């Protein structure tokens, strides 16, 4: 039986400011979904809330996998239940080698009931697996000995996220603008890697502004967010329209949400510049 990730009427606030205002989403293992929307519409907030960032408070609604609520679970428990977030801005952890980090991560995710301090998966087995995943993805062996994201270029950081995805093989992977800030070769790398990893055991939710990632990885469903909620859903043609024409059409069809977006932008204007397309 394939698993189901369900988001129902989700309200999420950051520092008492409501960002998500009733998001609904259903993703089944094996499916590919696109999540689009202008800057500030709540895409990344949804991704962080799904993964359980402590600053993102669930005010109402529920996130569940196969009926088990994730609302009160720590991020590590969510990871062990098969959720994965490829970060838009992966953090640096100096002094921690990629291979050591991955060995801990893989051990925990594959043995969800592991207690702290219990043994890691055997070194030989792990090394062989890491080596073949890296070869498949065309990542140099030297990568494994580097410190996690320390001194990595933007493209290398994104490759690192994809390598983690390949090793952890989650049921539900959220890719938060994995294509942003990359040149076209790097985007092709990411795109091809995702299409290789996708399959019946993995659902992929692609958050993106571009169409490139979606060319190789055709989504069953595209969700469009505006002002903290999903306002439209459609097939690949919708993504194509957004790519060609931007979000003007969406705003026209959803004047209330567009007005809220304007308000929020105006409130922020005093504090920082807003780039609303």
């Amino acid at each position, binding site marked *: 039986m394939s698993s189901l990730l369900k988001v129902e009427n989700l309200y999420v606030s950051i520092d008492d400011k409501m960002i998500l205002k009733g998001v609904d989403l259903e993703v089944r293992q094996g499916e590919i979904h696109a999540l689009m929307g202008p800057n500030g519409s709540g895409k990344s907030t949804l991704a962080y809330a799904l993964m359980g960032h402590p600053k993102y408070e669930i005010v109402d609604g529920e996130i569940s996998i196969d009926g088990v609520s994730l609302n009160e679970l720590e*991020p590590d428990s969510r990871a062990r239940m098969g959720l994965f977030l490829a970060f838009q801005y992966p953090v640096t952890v*100096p002094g921690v080698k990629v291979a050591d980090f991955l060995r801990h991560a893989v051990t925990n995710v594959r043995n969800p009931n592991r207690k702290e301090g219990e043994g890691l998966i055997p070194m030989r087995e792990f090394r062989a697996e890491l080596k073949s995943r890296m070869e498949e993805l065309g990542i140099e062996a030297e990568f494994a000995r580097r410190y996690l994201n320390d001194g990595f270029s933007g493209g290398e950081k994104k490759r690192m996220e994809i390598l983690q995805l390949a090793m952890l093989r989650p049921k539900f992977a959220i890719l938060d603008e994995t294509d942003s800030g990359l040149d076209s070769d790097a985007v092709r790398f990411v795109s091809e890697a995702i299409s290789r990893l996708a399959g019946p055991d993995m659902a992929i939710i692609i958050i993106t502004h571009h169409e490139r990632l979606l060319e190789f990885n055709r989504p069953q469903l595209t969700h469009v967010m505006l002002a903290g909620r999903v306002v439209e859903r459609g097939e690949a043609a919708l993504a194509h329209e957004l790519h060609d024409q931007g979000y003007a059409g969406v705003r026209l069809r959803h004047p209330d949400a567009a007005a809220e977006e304007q308000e929020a932008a105006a409130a922020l204007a005093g504090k920082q510049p807003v780039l609303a397309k």
Partner: protein
Amino acid sequence: MATDLKTATEDDIGVGEYQYGFHDSTDKYVFTARKGLDRDIVAQISEMKDEPAWMREFRLSSLETFWKKPLPLWGGELRNLDFQDIHYYVKASLGQERNWDDVPDEIRKTYDRLGIPEAERKYLAGVKAQYESEVVYGSLHEDLAKQGVIFTDTDSAMRDHPDLFREYFGTVIPPADNKFAALNSAVWSGGSFIYVPKGVKIEFPLQAYFRINSENMGQFERTLIIVDEGASVHYVEGCTAPTYSSESLHSAVVEIIVKRGARCRYTTIQNWSSNVYNLVTKRAMAYGDSLMEWVDGNLGSRLTMKYPAIYLMEPGARGETLSIAFAGKGQHQDAGAKMVHCAPNTYSRIISKSISKSGGRASYRGLVKVANGATGCKSNVVCDALLLDSDSRSDTYPYMEIDEDNVVIEHEASVSKISDEQLFYLMSRGMTEAEASSMIVTGFIEPLVKELPMEYAVEMNRLIELQMEGSIG
């Protein structure tokens, strides 16, 4: 090394994570001096050791110096230290053995629990085990002995190699250097004596292990290492003690002479229980084109004040100190390094990393001094502190005394906290919060740990993990 040790008394003062806090019976001890410090006690120590007159005089005059010197007003809180409430000399067994089977059972069991005989079989070129005031076991690989290497306890060295001993003893750290050097000079007992002849390179480490067992014990070992021209040695010391509610004092003096073209690395992995005052003076003289390295891992103790020094005496001498300090609850690590450039074209580097948690305090205190005329010197100091919570504290006291213009001196310092974003990132990959914190801390000290031989790197990481266990929440 040691694993699966039970903690006998860990709850006594609520320290929790310290696993070497067990102690043995003291019933079968050969001799325990009464508590307190005076001329009679010092004379008694000298008499029991059957020392030459000059050493007896050296001790008694050092005692006078000790009384005259004030307690340092900087560093840690020393006012609770009662010098009259300490046993200055405790002899647990009759003599030093060459075979573990001949070491009294209870003492041997302690070292078994600490994993020393096992480590000796696997990767050490020689071992000294000091228990209380005296060395109870010693070994050295035969081929090293044949090459003229001397590795013995300091008392035996005075007896068996009197000329060599007297030529160097007290020349690097005179008794009047500081109050605790004077105290050690008065009541010293045990410690390692190493002589590496010209050109002899010792491949595997020599290790000494210092264990305090009694309550209110003072351990005052005296180590003297002479590395002759072109020779090299790596010496490693480890230290533990039982957990008691009253204080113990460890006050060692370590003197090292690294001759022209020689190399010496001195690694300390100290893990005292949290009732030990650890007040140690360590200093090396490095001559032309030689290399002296201190690798100093400070865990445990109530208060540690230790600043390993290197005097760069001739051109081309290099000095390097890598220091890790971990201050937990109720602990103050006041540690650092001193580099004194006495000659032109000498080089030094200090890397210090400290971690404070649960209200612990870690201070970096360091000195870089360049004498007038010591042109072309380079010195680089980097100290990084990691605070694990807002109750903990980190301070940096870098002193510079530069009496020469034509030099390059660099200093960088940073204080960081474990960031929420790092924790979230690691936790999103299945790591618990404690595991994630531990991984960040391990990464923080990695640049130093990777300098250790593999076995010690594993041990250091394990000790740090033990310190981290159950500490986050």
